[in-house]
């Protein structure tokens, strides 16, 4: 799906040249433009802008104008303009996140899009978990993720755009609706959702900024550890422990199963770093609840990914095959429900 016509790249380069010129206040030359990853509807492009004798390494995040075909975007995902504002607020509050620079305008014709600074590092879990250059980083990442998350949760709500508030009950209702939209009955997910429903944590006093997809694979890291938290489109207001639970879901350990904190450390190590950096004291039972929730959530997302193909929104063997990964979370759920916390 990374196939794009030369004319698309030319169009993007042309628009970027004039947008960069507007932002940097002088003529800008666009070099090395290349499409990185993502599906047809969510694109990431990498490029350099040379302006005023300076070279800026940049990233374009872009949702092309919809063609009227069934959208394959998640209904709960933020639009680009809101994501831009969340990133801006987080960066200003000292969260290790990419610095966003400017948005493109509707008349630019690229759809919803913004530009941010490119940051070094890789997001590929397999490399971070196994390759020699990251050996030192592997000992640091769990603690860093705790520290950074405390900063995310400390972002002033007044600095943020309007975000949906989603708490435990809303999430359960959302996942049940998602199950109803699938063609096959799912006894294990139903069991787990009823388990979660009966044990919902007490409502939170004050909803905080929740990243919503805080996990290995969604941050960049280099030899020194985490360099930037990415993928903010799931941001919402809610229970901050949601992010801690999601990070520990077994699927995000990528095989390093004995290291719950994203494959890099223990839960306690993560929580200690989080608390030390100003996060509220973590209640293990609450964290367990959110880890069980996250496991159901990922299992249902696997089915939804497959349905983007099966429903005809996109044609992708890769997405279709994700449907067969859902059972991994069923194995984990039966295990988790047996644990006494």
């Amino acid at each position, binding site marked *: 799906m*990374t196939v794009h016509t030369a004319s698309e790249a030319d169009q993007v380069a042309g628009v970027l040249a004039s947008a960069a010129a507007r932002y940097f206040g002088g003529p800008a030359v666009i070099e090395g433009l290349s499409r990185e990853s993502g599906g047809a509807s969510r694109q990431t492009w990498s490029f350099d802008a040379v302006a005023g004798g300076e070279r800026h390494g940049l990233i374009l995040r872009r949702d092309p104008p919809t063609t009227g075909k069934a959208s394959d975007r998640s209904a709960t995902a933020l639009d680009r303009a809101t994501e831009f504002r969340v990133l801006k607020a987080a960066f200003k509050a000292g969260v290790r996140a990419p610095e966003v620079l400017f948005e493109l305008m509707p008349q630019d014709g690229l759809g919803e899009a913004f530009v941010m600074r490119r940051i070094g590092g890789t997001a590929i879990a397999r490399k971070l978990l196994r390759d020699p250059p990251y050996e030192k980083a592997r000992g640091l990442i769990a603690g860093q993720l705790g520290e950074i998350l405390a900063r995310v949760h400390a972002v002033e709500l007044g600095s943020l755009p309007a975000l949906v508030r989603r708490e435990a009950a809303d999430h359960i209702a959302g996942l*049940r609706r998602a199950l109803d939209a699938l063609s*096959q*009955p*799912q*006894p*294990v997910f*139903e*069991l787990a*959702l*009823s*388990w979660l429903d*009966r044990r919902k944590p007490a409502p939170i006093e004050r909803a905080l900024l929740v990243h919503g997809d805080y996990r290995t694979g969604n941050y960049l890291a280099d030899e020194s550890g985490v360099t930037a938290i990415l993928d903010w489109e799931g941001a919402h207001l809610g229970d901050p422990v949601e992010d801690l639970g999601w990070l520990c879901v077994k699927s995000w350990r990528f095989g390093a*199963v004995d290291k719950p904190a994203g494959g890099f450390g223990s839960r306690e190590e993560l929580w200690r770093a989080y608390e030390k950096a100003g996060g509220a004291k973590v209640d293990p039972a609450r964290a367990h609840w959110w880890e069980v929730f996250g496991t159901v959530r990922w299992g249902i997302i696997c089915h939804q990914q497959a349905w983007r193909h099966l429903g005809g929104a996109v044609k992708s*063997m*890769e997405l279709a*095959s994700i449907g*067969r*990964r859902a*059972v*991994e979370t*069923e*194995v984990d759920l*039966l295990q988790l*429900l047996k644990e006494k916390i």
Partner: protein
Amino acid sequence: MAQDRPTAAELLSAIADLLREEVTPVLDKVEPRLGFQMRVAVNSLAILEREARLGPAADRREHERLVKLLGRDASLDDLNRELARQLRAGERDERDTALMAHLEATIADKIAIANPKWR
């Protein structure tokens, strides 16, 4: 009428071997993006090979257990639909040992096909 050898599982595994051992290395050199897609495809072929071998018996066992658990006979899909309904309604939960034994056995059979290395 029974088909001649190779069986579905044998043919799938021969295809997977060819794609893994001969096609993927070439793709990795020429077009890494397709090399990645090919790995996903080879992995899916391995799932299908296990499904062709183990799926029918697993489905039969699941059906037998469900008939016993729910006390009536219907298609596998209908029985699972009824079980899912009961679980959402809270008519059964994790304290029901017969239910849990059924789910454990069903998921063990499913993961043996989808990803036997998962732990």
